[in-house]
């Protein structure tokens, strides 16, 4: 009897057929869903979507284990992809399409994940108060010159976690910790709000430089709200560390789950997201840098100029994520 009931329940619940791809995604932009619809129209493969933060989606994947219905995990931070891989939640994928579409430093060496978009974590500055010649590196932001001038998000931000992880990779843990201590000293306020709030604040004169992701600057400058565009007029964009290891970049990326039962469709889906057609949408609508070398960034991003990016193997940031959080906690970066 129990078996019968369960069988009925099973047929009522299980509706995941082979012509579908089940996606867990941290990306939550309306343009993504337009892209998914396009993919379905082209291939007949339906996309089923659960959106939440990467940390929670990784928990869900992990707890569901080998029976998880998910085929693809999409995160907005490379450390989360690394963590998912370490937990054995992603599986290897080899695809010549992906190898062409995604440059080597933007994908996992073993093919567990591939970048979909890039974002640079840059120094935004108030053009009336700071000259670009006064800016140089992330490291320099810890110097006394910037006392009470820095705006930055809280340490809950995965982007800050990966930035400090990159500091650990380049300069070692001790120096990274000293750097964090210097930044805390130089903060214009206790960290709060999102990246875009830091930009509005430096435009208003609370602080003079902000550490933010590029697409937030794009969003502010091209906002529908006139007040945001007015704030954007004050903002300059500086790519730090051009004479050393390059500007820190992070990615939004995707991998096929270890439990995937629709591997072929999942692969097609990720390949589609890195195609010229999809990359154009990412670039134009969200002000992210495309990963496909054939696609140009949006005009606004181009106007900030080309830059040398940090070519460190991104997976290393994931390996140093917990150490980075400890550095924040130790130095009172809330």
């Amino acid at each position, binding site marked *: 009897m129990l078996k019968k009931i369960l069988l009925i329940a099973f047929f009522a619940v299980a509706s995941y057929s082979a012509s579908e791809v089940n996606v867990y995604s941290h990306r939550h932009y309306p343009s993504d869903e337009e892209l998914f619809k396009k993919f379905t129209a082209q291939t007949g493969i339906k996309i089923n979507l659960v959106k*939440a933060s990467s940390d929670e989606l990784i928990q869900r994947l992990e707890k569901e284990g080998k029976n998880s219905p998910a085929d693809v995990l999409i995160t907005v931070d490379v450390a989360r992809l690394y963590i998912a891989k370490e937990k054995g939640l992603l599986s290897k994928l080899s695809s010549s399409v992906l190898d062409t579409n995604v440059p080597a430093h933007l994908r996992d060496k073993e093919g567990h994940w591939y970048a979909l978009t890039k974002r640079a974590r840059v120094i935004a500055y108030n053009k009336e108060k700071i000259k670009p010649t006064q800016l140089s590196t992330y490291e320099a932001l810890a110097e006394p010159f910037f006392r009470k001038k820095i705006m930055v998000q809280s340490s*809950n931000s995965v982007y800050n976690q990966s930035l400090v992880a990159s500091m650990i990779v380049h300069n070692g843990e001790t120096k990274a910790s000293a750097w964090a201590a210097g930044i805390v000293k130089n903060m214009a306020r206790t960290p709060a709000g999102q990246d875009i709030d830091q930009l509005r604040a430096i435009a208003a004169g609370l602080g003079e430089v902000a550490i933010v992701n590029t697409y937030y600057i794009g969003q502010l400058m091209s906002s529908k709200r006139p007040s945001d565009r007015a704030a954007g007029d004050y903002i300059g964009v500086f790519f730090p560390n051009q004479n050393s290891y390059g500007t820190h970049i992070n990615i939004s990326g995707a991998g096929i789950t270890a439990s995937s039962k629709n591997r072929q469709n999942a692969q097609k889906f990720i390949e589609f997201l890195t195609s010229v057609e999809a990359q154009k949408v990412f670039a134009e609508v969200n002000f992210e840098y495309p990963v496909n070398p054939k696609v140009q960034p949006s005009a606004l991003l181009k106007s900030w100029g080309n830059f040398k990016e940090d070519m460190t193997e991104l997976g290393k940031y994931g390996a140093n994520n917990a150490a980075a959080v400890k550095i924040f906690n130790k130095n009172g970066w809330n």
Partner: protein
Amino acid sequence: MPFLPLNRWSIQTYFFVLTLILPAIVVIVFAFGAQGETLEHIKETILADVVLNTLYVLLGTVSVASVFGIGGAYLTTFYSFKMDKLFSFLLAMPFIVPAYIIGFIYGDIFGFYGPVHIFIMQLGFKNYIDVLNGYMVVFIMGLALYPYVYLIVKASFSKTRSTILYPAINLGATRTKIFFRLIIPLSRVSIIGALTLVVMECISEYGVMKFYGVDTLSTAIFNAWFGLNDPQSAAYISSIAMIFVVSVLLIEKAARGKISYKSEKSSAKIPKEKLGFIAGAAAYLFLLIPITFGFLIPFLWTLYYSVVYAENIIDMEYVGVMLNTVAVAGVSSILIVFGAIFVSYSARIFPYGINKYSGKIASLGYALPGAVIGVGILILFSSIDNWLIAKFNFESMLIGGTVFALIFGYCARFFAVAINTVDGSFERIGITVNKAARSLGASHIKTLLKIELPLMKRAMLFAFVLAFVDIVKELPLTLILRPFNYETLATKTYEMVGSQMMYESSIYVLSIMVAAFIPLFLTILKKEY
């Protein structure tokens, strides 16, 4: 009296309560064997700060919520002034706006380059204050949560009878004295009960704390779990949050234990006193603060952007989202109310040992952040699913990632909201009714169904509405547990929280307000709840 009474009622109650708190227990059990090093790190670095911050936020929020909640209930119950009915109604309205929405809206309105800042710049002022700070957190949480106090305490105030107050008035006691010596003590059960809800909501709040940069126990749980990848330490911090809540619950139970309520339907209600001109003006000013900041401003902001950015939003998808939200919240709230009646009644007829506290124990889920309860349910349901799959060779998961998981999550989390009201209602009915029916030979269940439930219709409706509104507003649990392609009004607003889409998604915020407003309005129409 036995510590663990064992009879049919109590055993069923234990089973029920255990099921409800299983997600919380699982998280903590799962965490046993804490890694010393990470935990030491947390203790050395952030723990003291987050405990203190949590205390400050709690004290501040409870104060703000008490002043507006009790003050509002007092003025609208015992005094008459022009438009007092409208004011009683508007005072409840902030309840329909989720705290994280109030938080975001104030970040927008009062933040840099928000409308207020622009206005001040136009006046020629250069300097402007930064609103992303702890004081704003207290203000926002106070505004978002005082309606619990207002609604619950007003229900209690309105049952104050003239036989109690007239002697005091006739003996020449001042209004202040009557308020502090009679009205407050008479309603202390309701007041403390409502403040318990405020404390629990406040401890579990994550969105507002993160946005305003205040680290509390709730943000520390995320720091440990996800940042440091150490669920053990996260569970340790969760248990501190639980200790906070258990202390408050014990205070509440103690307050409740000493008092025995009797309904005195025969004696008349106290007539409302008319307020003079100056007192009236002061009352208006006082009441306008929570109404304006808790409801009018967030509502108008949302309405404005809904209109400005409305681009063919009302389509089939929107209708589907609305239906999802209302259906799941409706089913969950009904389950919660009946569950609360069952547990409360069991404690009523067997008020011994642990059974007496079962309602409180079942409420624990309310004090943990929604995402933590969510992970507990994931662990639970996935284990069951994986076992079923291994045993019966099913091809995919049966209960994980279904609406059922979501409904269970809501029940585990929002049981506390209903049990409070139901407990209070049983106490007001008094135990005599029950004993009389029993002595005439009626069974427990018959007594409940035929005698007591009919007396509790309003309380049941009120408990339903409280749970319903909370579920419609709920976000983190829904995000982590929802099935594929499943959107509620709250998850739609997640786009507003997570990215910079808050203006575009304001129609969904407006819809949350409407979905929450309708049942609340119907309850208030019934006047007494």
